[in-house]
């Protein structure tokens, strides 16, 4: 494992009345794959935003890729954002741009690559995600699974070091889930990508993970390898894995 990519230390945060995390501590090492697991409204989505530096804690400390988002300058935050890819639960593609333009936006904005090089990278990334045939479509015409794969391509196309995926299973059919899993595996193996996902149901994705972080009511219940998770002595965990 590399150095710590994410360090959350006794973090408390809330997002209105809908989500909160309390006394949440987590360290994710570079190249590690971690799943935040819990029922809806368990706080895993907010925890994921904290991991990506997209939400500010009320107390406690957060460091993402060595940067403290609360103390970082605008320049440092901009640099951090370029290194972190975030896939929202809703695909959040820019509705007025085609699939190709959506994926090209971060490259056009953050790099000075010529359009030919951007086209090459974008089309390669869309092909990896299996959505290259949709490159000239507008987001409104896509299925949820395709739109999420496009959002994944957009998150991966710059040289992302940390990938966060909210509700990783949402909208994906069986084939898309296999492709999604394969992509995470490939990027992790080839590029040392650090991966944090949130999920609300048991999934084959767990076999890719180094650790599952089990959450309930905004608190960490347990953090353990996937094989041990179903043995955690907690009613929520037992319900989650269908042991009760």
């Amino acid at each position: 494992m590399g150095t710590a990519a994410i360090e959350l230390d006794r973090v408390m945060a809330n997002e209105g009345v809908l989500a909160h995390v309390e006394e949440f501590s987590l360290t994710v090492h570079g190249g590690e794959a971690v799943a935040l697991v819990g029922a809806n409204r368990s706080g895993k989505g907010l925890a994921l935003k904290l991991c990506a530096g997209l939400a500010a804690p009320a107390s406690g400390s957060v460091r993402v890729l060595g940067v403290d988002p609360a103390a970082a300058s605008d320049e440092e935050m901009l640099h951090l954002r370029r290194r972190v890819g975030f896939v929202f639960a809703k695909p959040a593609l820019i509705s007025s741009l085609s699939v190709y333009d959506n994926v090209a936006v971060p490259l056009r904005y953050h790099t000075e690559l010529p359009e030919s090089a951007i086209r090459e990278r974008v089309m390669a990334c869309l092909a990896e995600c299996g959505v290259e045939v949709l490159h000239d479509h507008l987001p409104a015409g896509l299925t949820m699974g395709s739109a999420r794969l496009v959002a994944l391509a957009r998150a991966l196309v710059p040289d992302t070091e940390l990938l966060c995926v909210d509700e990783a299973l949402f909208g994906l059919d069986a084939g898309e889930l296999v492709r999604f899993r394969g992509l995470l595996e490939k990027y992790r193996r080839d590029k040392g990508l650090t991966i944090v996902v949130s999920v609300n149901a048991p999934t084959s994705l767990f076999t890719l993970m180094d650790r599952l972080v089990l959450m309930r009511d905004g608190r960490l219940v347990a953090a353990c390898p996937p094989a041990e998770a179903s043995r955690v002595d907690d009613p929520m965990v037992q319900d989650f894995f269908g042991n009760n």
Partner: protein
Amino acid sequence: MIAWTGRKTVEGVAYAADILFLGFLAFKELFSPARSGRGEASRIIVRQILFTGVDALPVVGALALMLGLIVIIQAGLALPQVGAGEFLAHIVVAALVRELGPLLTAFIVVWRSGTAMCTELGNMRVGQEIDAIEAMGISVVRFLVMPRMVGVIVALTCLTVYFDLVAIIGGFLVAKVTLTIPFLVYLEDIGRALSVTDVLITVVKSALFGLVIAVICCHHGLSVVGAVTEVPQQNARAMLNTVAACLVLDILVSVGFYVR
């Protein structure tokens, strides 16, 4: 009553401060030396000019023609009755070029493009598109507000010049049916009545209206928090506030330049 007045005053000042701050940020981005996102911004500027300017040519042209016709016919028939027939050109310049041209063109842009911008940004907020843009490290002001502001300013200024030309020339040609003034004499009178200051003030007004329309409508679009039902509400507020702001600006500029 006093508490209500105080609360409304504070809200009004805070609102004006928000608008000014957004305008300042957009201008800062316009003159920022950073190269990032310039290509994308240029694309949005061109698209905004096409939508706000080129697509509005027929409706602005029709309105200008009808309004020019009305003003020229009324002035052309009424002025000779009081022995002031030679002032037709002055009336046309004062009414159409100085006031109605910039103001009515701005209203058309508010109703067409202002509503569109506010709705688009509001829906983008609801669909988490703006969150995604921020998560990619892209400045929302640089990516969404500044290009729209530049596009609307350029388009509105060009549209106003177009409105004035159509109203003065087209309006007269149609009104010629009832008037006896020769076209060339009319044009010479217009040339004498129209000063460089008139043209400059029209351009300044249009640019200011464009700035106000873009910034207020973007502000309201971005103020949507999370529900689709907020979009039409913010749209209505944006329209009302933009029209009020344009009228106030028009009065200030006219009083500032013409009242001696």
